[in-house]
């Protein structure tokens, strides 16, 4: 197995699937301005997907394009976090999912900027700028909703309770990470979880929200063991490519 390829697939799938989820909001946002904000974030994520998979194709060396990789794999070959395939739910669930993810992606990209692999470093540098904005946007919403009305507080707390168990998967290091670390391709990820936790604590405190006490961790996405939701995402995502194989669009 090519570890760098595998790593890029994980990174790209997170962007692809979350971008897909966010794009489902287009035309349905709680207010026109927010509709535009969410599509902006979705566009950033799809842009990231494109450059990550372009590079993954090169690393793999089998002539696959970014579209081949994005659209033409089977479910078990997608390696995104379970968190990003969670359904949109209400606006609170969407924002909480976004916040927990952004708070992880920002310190991750900050580290990847220092990757010895020049291409990966360049992708991280561009994505980092985008992610800083995403994190600010989602943090502010968490605070507004948490410290808003009784109803919004309850809804966003429920969202946190629902999503919390999917966050641990972000910090698992397996043989893919280990081999890249050993080869010096990836920089050290030391302190990543602590930094994430600090952001989460600070925002949740301002939002008057409480971290759930249930410590159950739900894993699977990184190894291709997904929830039932991914199948439906792929059904839409792949529809054209599967119904009209091999055509140019």
């Amino acid at each position: 197995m090519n570890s760098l390829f595998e790593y890029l697939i994980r990174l790209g799938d997170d962007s692809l699937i979350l971008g897909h989820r966010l794009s489902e909001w287009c035309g349905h946002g709680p207010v026109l301005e927010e509709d535009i904000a969410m599509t902006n974030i979705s566009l950033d994520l799809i842009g990231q997907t494109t450059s990550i998979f372009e590079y993954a194709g090169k690393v793999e060396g089998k002539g696959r394009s970014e579209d081949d990789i994005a659209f033409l794999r089977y479910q078990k070959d997608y390696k995104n976090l379970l968190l990003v395939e969670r359904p949109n739910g209400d606006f609170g669930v969407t924002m909480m999912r976004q916040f927990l993810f952004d708070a992880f992606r920002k310190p991750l990209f900050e580290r990847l900027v220092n990757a010895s692999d020049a291409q990966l470093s360049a992708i991280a540098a561009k994505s980092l700028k985008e992610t800083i904005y995403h994190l600010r946007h989602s943090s502010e919403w968490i605070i507004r909703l948490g410290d808003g009305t009784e109803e919004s507080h309850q809804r966003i707390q429920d969202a946190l309770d629902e999503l919390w168990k999917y966050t641990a998967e972000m910090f698992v290091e397996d043989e893919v990470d280990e081999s890249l670390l050993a080869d010096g391709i990836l920089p050290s990820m030391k302190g990543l979880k602590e930094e994430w936790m600090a952001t989460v604590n600070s925002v949740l405190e301002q939002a008057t929200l409480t971290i759930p006490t249930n410590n159950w961790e739900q894993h699977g996405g990184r190894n291709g063991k997904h929830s039932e939701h991914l199948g439906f995402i792929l059904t839409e995502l792949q529809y054209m490519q599967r119904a009209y194989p091999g055509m140019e669009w």
Partner: protein
Amino acid sequence: MKKEQDISELERKFQEKIDQDIKIEPKDWMPDNYRKTLIRQISQHAHSEVVGMLPEGNWITRAPNLRRKAVLLAKVQDEAGHGLYLYSATETLGADREDCIDDLHSGKAKYSSIFNYPTLTWADMGAVGWLVDGAAIMNQVPLCRCSYGPYARAMVKVCKEESFHQRQGYEIMMALAAGSVEQKEMAQDALNRFWWPSLMMFGPPDEDSKHTKQSMDWRIKRHSNDELRQMMVDITVPQAEAIGLTIPDADLKWNEEKGGYDYGEIDWDEFWNVVKGNGPCNKDRIDTRRKAKENGAWVREAANAHAEKRKARKLRRAS
């Protein structure tokens, strides 16, 4: 209360300004009817942008590749932006955005009927961009010079941004027309379904259009419906020919004398039916928008509540 004589004097001055192509700005005096007509026209236009997000938004998750997906997403996002620019222009006239939106949801306000047709295949993204945005641009370019300043300025921005919308649509059609048999069929089918509704976008024939004369005098409309429709046909026919697609009109013929195409009878019964609410998607479109507003109520409320709390805290800190 102004005397009648004063009013007619004001109206005379107002019309003089318009005739000299001097823009009217928000705080200037304007006849009530000018204000009302503009609010109706601009909010209708805004509604069209926002409802218009739905038939295309429908295909974002199914776009065939990453490039097309990003382009479509950016385009639909632009439409939300354009809706916003236009609502912002109606607010300069003293209208309230949410009131306008409520009128849309109650059926009191109209929007472009074209968005009551379904988008059934990927080729419809091509047809909508090429024909629907094409027709919209035809309508909008002259409005960049309309007499009301904020509307004209909004239209300048809209037109600048929309130039890519039509091109991306045509590019989709071009790719399909040059593709496999299935793809070409898909493209022709989309053209067949969207051609006539696109021509209807310019509104009823001049002899049945009740607003045209006054609006032309006020320069908030600069060409008649039929003039614009003719321009649309003349421009589009060669574009279809260039990529090997056939306009679904047996009566279409070049007329040397008028220097334009003669085209077949438009089914105005269909047009009025869709306007009245009997199009294939009228109910779905409005239901979707209404639901978005309802589902967002708690979010908007929370943001208000939070803003109040923050203000109060700031005051407390300051005192």
